[in-house]
């Protein structure tokens, strides 16, 4: 089963996203939250590295993140991994919360990493108002 890594500048956001995704999947999908830096806002390379290792699975790992340094730090960590590990890990270009919810459900039904990533990225187009008049 594909697992998820949630990265945010805020520990509360990362933990909250995990909490909602865990509820959607009944805890079936391994999800780790990697938020904040030294008690404040920021991105923590060591926490991200440890998070990826904690949920690493040969089925794949999907990283969902907020922005800026979260992206740059995740990419820096991936560069230091072996080629065989790195090819099992993908970063979703997706909204963090919606992407995590949709992709966690997709992961829970046993879909491959490419499909889980695609579903996360489609969350960018998810409409919340039926009329579209926002």
């Amino acid at each position: 089963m594909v697992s998820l890594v949630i990265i945010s500048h805020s520990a509360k956001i990362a933990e909250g996203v995990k909490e909602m995704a865990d509820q959607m999947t009944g805890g079936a999908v391994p999800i780790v939250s990697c938020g904040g830096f030294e008690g404040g806002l920021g991105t923590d390379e060591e926490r991200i590295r440890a998070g990826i290792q904690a949920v690493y699975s040969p089925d794949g790992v999907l990283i969902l993140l907020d922005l800026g340094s979260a992206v740059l730090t995740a990419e820096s960590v991936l560069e230091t991994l072996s080629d065989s590990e790195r090819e099992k890990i993908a970063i979703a270009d997706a909204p963090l919360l919606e992407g995590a919810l949709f992709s966690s459900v997709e992961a829970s039904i046993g879909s491959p990493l490419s499909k889980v990533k695609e579903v996360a990225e489609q969350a960018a187009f998810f409409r919340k108002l039926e009329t579209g008049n926002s």
Partner: protein
Amino acid sequence: MVVGSTELLHLLEKIADRIEENKEYLTELDLAIGDADHGLNMDRGFQAVKARFGGWSTQTPSQILKGVGSTLVSTVGGASGPLYGTAFLSMGQAIDGKERIASEDLLPLAEAAIAGIIKRGKASAGDKTMLDTILPVRDALSSLLYGGEADAGAAIAKAAREGMESTKPLLALKGRASFLKERSIGHIDPGAASACLIIEAAVDFLREHA
């Protein structure tokens, strides 16, 4: 100019001190168009670099620069960590195996730093980033090779400062500042400012000691 490991550690100490002295200035710049953490983050990163000097004293300049890179990636906590971190890692790779850094290594070092920053940050000239300070420095180094500049250090420092100043009228296209759109105009980019401080500190050290 010849810089061995001992001189390189002194140079890095000067950079760390310069960042520490300008912590509030960098944070003020970042308060205007970012998230107000650049001074704090850069200072935390370079103080962590200083704290690791003891373990680096027997290493080559290449190993030291790579050590600086990985320290910055793990201790800065903001986008400047991976950006400067990758720049230093790339500079370390550019002088792999050398015991000393000589004048002719400066241009390849600048090229390596730029390639690392572009790989990580995907920015271009004029995006209102640290590159707008560093690209003119690379150009200044490159024209120095063709000759006759009386004071190379002054030319490099001038290029850095003018590069930094050039970000003021620009519209930010990268990072948090880009969220502000037109309101990012009229402010110096914090990353361009920290890059200028680093280069000026390095130039000052090299003029005195190398």
